[in-house]
């Protein structure tokens, strides 16, 4: 996977955030805005990782607990919780994360293969990892993260 990406030398800005113990990142151009969690309406019978739906300026947005989606438990409630509003294939989706960390300037060349310690994440969800200062950051493959599971529906 890293070879594929290594071919490109495009620098892009990432948003990094905490999920449980680890730091994850997604490209900032996917993120329309970051909002605080607010009231939402639970959707019964929805997949476990879907918290519910909320109103975002007149749009009904599906809220996804990114921790649950990645099979890392659930987001721990705190005042630092944030919702990343992303535009994925024309649909606006809110991703609940534990805490926004920073932004990172990233080049595809920095991407390394996955270490075994991160393999407990839902398979296929990561594009790879890279170093940011002291920390290791895992880059999420948003298509894979948000793709519907096959057995769903």
């Amino acid at each position: 996977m890293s070879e594929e990406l290594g071919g490109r030398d495009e620098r892009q800005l990432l948003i990094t955030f905490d999920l449980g113990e680890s730091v994850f990142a997604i490209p900032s151009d996917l993120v329309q805005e970051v909002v605080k969690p607010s009231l939402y309406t639970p959707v019964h019978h929805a997949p476990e990782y879907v918290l519910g739906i909320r109103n975002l300026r007149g749009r009904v947005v599906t809220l996804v607990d990114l921790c649950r989606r990645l099979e890392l438990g659930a987001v721990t409630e705190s005042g630092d919780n944030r919702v990343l509003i992303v535009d994925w294939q024309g649909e606006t989706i809110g991703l609940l994360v534990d805490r926004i960390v920073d932004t990172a300037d990233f080049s595809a060349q920095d991407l390394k293969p996955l270490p075994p310690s991160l393999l407990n994440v839902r398979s296929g969800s990561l594009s790879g990892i890279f170093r940011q200062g002291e920390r290791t950051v895992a880059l999420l493959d948003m298509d894979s993260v948000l793709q519907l599971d096959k057995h769903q529906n």
Partner: protein
Amino acid sequence: MDELLDDELLQEFITETREHLYSIENDLLSIEEQGENVDLELVNKVFRAAHSIKGGSGFFGLDKVKELAHRAETVLDMLRSGKMVPNSEITNVLLAAFDQLREMVNMPGDSRNADISELLQSLNALASSYLSSAEKDSLHNETVLKGESEKSPEISLPQVDIDRSERMGQNIYRLSIDLIHDIEHQGMTVLDLFNKLWDQGELLDSALDFAAVGSLEDEIANQLPMQLVYSTSLDARQVAELFSIDDERLERLSSNPQEEPVAETVTETFEVENNVAENDLDAAGQEKANVGLSKPPGSEINKQEKPDKSVEASSSAVTKVEETLRVSVPLLEKLMNLAGELVLGRNQLRAAIASNNDLALTKADQHLNQVTTELQDAIMQTRLQPIGHLFGKFPRVVRDMARTLGKDIQVDIRGKDVELDRSLIEGLSDPLTHMIRNAVDHGLEIPGERIESGKPTAGTLIISASHEAGQVVIEISDDGRGMDPEKIAHSALKKGQIREEKLAGMSDQEKLELILMPGFSTAEQVSEFSGRGVGMDVVKTNLNKLGGQVEISSTVGKGTRFRIKLPLTLAIIPSLIISLENERFAIPQVNVEELIRIRAEEVKNRVEIVGGSEVLLLRDKTLPLVRFDEFLGIVPSYVDPQTGRREVDRRLSLADRRSSRYDLNSVIPQQTSAESQLHTLNKRGDGRRHTPDSALEVAIVSSNGTRYGLVVDGFQDTEEIVVKPLGRHLEGLNEYAGATILGDGSVALIIDTAGLAEKVELMSAAGSQRAAELKQDAERKRLENQHALLMFHNASDEQCAISLDNVLRIERIHHDQIEMHGQRRTMQYRGASLPLVTMADTARVKEIEQDQELVVIVSKIKGNEIGLLGAMPVDVIERCVEIDTVTHRTPGILGSTIVDDTTVLIADIYELVDTVNPSWGVASRPELLRFDTGSNADEGGPDTVNASHQIDAVTLLLAEDSDFFRNQVKRHLESAGYRVLACPDGQAAWEQLLDNLGQVRLVVTDIEMPRLSGLELTRNIRGDEKTKSLPVIAVSSLAGDDDRERGMQCGVTEYQVKLDRDALLEAVERLLEESVAH
């Protein structure tokens, strides 16, 4: 000249004219239909439209338009004055004229080249044929009118117009209005001027005074005077005021000048108001004139709101004119308000940012958030249009086609008010038109054919729109010849569109759907109207593009129905908001039939459990009940104000449990304010859900023919909601039709009643295996509990019964007929002595009293007749009753049941006789017993049946699921000396049999049983080497020959219908003998 005209003005004129023309079609059709009883108001409306077009086109120099409009107007005037009775010929000519007008108005530049001579001729011919010769002249004659002053030019007008003015008591004026100074500089448009003119009178002629314009080089060329000839009932002063012009530019024209007093005009107005039926154009004009005068000129908003205008005004915008869209004034005002709010919000935001005040920021953010949401919704609403705009054109389409094809077709349009996004309406136009053409062309038959097939001459075409299950459903149905699936299949085969082997496996429905395949057409020959070019496949593709689906249903000879389901992504639907816990849901109003509240004390009577699920008794019908909270799996919860997350509210659930155990009032503290009382009510409502016997709030909902009750916490308001789709991650959830944003900004899910029903298997239950099982269960229960009982009394307060199967005859006797022989009673009966028994002989019941009228119930047991003494009255009942074999069980009484609220003791005649007089040999043990067990041949008499004997007795296996019958049969068999292994179903019996191989000598089994049926049990027995020769007696409630046949096929040795003790015992004895013999 065109260059001189403002493009915008012309565009406005065209738009307005199109609107007039648009409504005209249907109006003309209605007029034709009404015939002699024509609605004058309708004719007036069309007349006014023609008139407006005439006036405007004069201004724009569209002479041919003006001329044609004028002639059409003349004919309409004759219709109006009753000189002509509308018929199809007149309507045809008028329709053609308006078609031509439309064409010319659409292409104003080419209008001068249009050939309208033929139409003019037809119109003239129409008019002339109804006119006297003098009147005919007035059509063509022009009369010269003179102004008051000498210098003003003379104007010649058609005599018809002048006559009309006079008839209406109107004056004719010449006005000179400068388009630049009087109109443009006053903030008005020319159209405003025309509207004002038309509202209060008639514009007879108009012309721009080009001479006054001067050349481009002229410095003073800053005016554009227009000459108008205007007929109105206003007096000169009023006209001058109305148009803000001085007297110089206004003069009265007359062939016979005379001043009309104003007072007279007013009087007329009152007459008109009291005389609505005869309301005429002039009257309407005057009425408006008086209203208009009291208002400042140019109040255009009021004009929009006039009902007669707004109806037609909104009609054409969607389907024809794409450039402009009418928006209702209240909506516009709402948008304006919201825009104001938005500005306010921005200011708050700025202030907050400037002062760096977090609280203010949050407030501003909330405010803006809400305003934006509302603004967005309001703007979305502007896009919604009633589908009537689209449907409106169909009657004309159908009428024209029907005429050409010689068919008689009634069009029935329903659901005009259903609102759809205008993009959807636009997209629907072509597919729907095509489908309607198809229906008229191919679907509906010519009158002759219809009569032959016994149908009314006129075919019916129904075009309807409705909301259903969160979708808009459009139906086009006809009562024509229908579509033959075989013909369609044949045609598809012939064209090579489908292979024969594939066709073989297709249902009729699938064959019908072949017409949606590309390139398919059932038309035998290509006709003018349909079957060429666009076929149903294109219709389908177009509809799919809109997210719609097509369903076809058709019955040969009966008709065809196309159902188009459209998503209502943007549609607004009125919905009921329901509450459950802290959540709210919307149910589309169309799916809600009624709301009921079942009081706590009624719940027990009205809610029953059938087949494991709750049903509600509602006016003698049962409806499935769905507990919405259970369906959703909701546990009491609350929203943590700090994190915004939902938490399970344990406190609340504790309170619930408490409230279910104790008096509700004692748990809830006394509160005084109205608000807290409301709160208390809500709390109590919450508590109610968890107590089985508390009141229920039920919404009776329906969809696709399924009705059920949805139990919720409470009902809130009804709201017009905008449906928003759910995201992809929630796609599979068919119980929701989408989501909506409520007034307070929160999101509510919309319930799809059909999807929900499917999810809880209400709907699928109809054809499912589970339904079959339930039905079988119910039938079995019914059969098993169906008892025919002879009711009699013992002591007067003791109701008794005996199975009718045991009853041979009933005789009324007197007390003195009874002979006592020691303890035994007998009576002379048919020349012999009949032994008598009474219930009191064995059972703990009272003796029959002396004053009771006696009956003897005669039974035959082992060939001997026995009489059971009872008392009148007797009755025979046949019904489903549960027999309780425990409570009243004593020897002689097999059990009890409840009939009409009375406990009935059921006598067991065998036991009675057995106990009273064993010497009658009822319970004689079979010979076989001694033969078989050998050693105990001399042990005990035939009259002593006890457990010690049974140990050595022949073992029989009994499988029977009904407790009652199992006990009965077991007792019968045991009383005959057999040992009985009784099992509640086939599976248990089979297991018992395998455990007791070699012991069990014969099997008695019921047929219908859970787990393993009697038939399956028999098959098992026959299929196993160790058991295959065992005799099997089937004892069943299923008495049909088929049932018997099936039993025998499975290997049942003997088949008996429940329950004949003697026959059963006889068979057991016989079969055991036979099996030993082998």
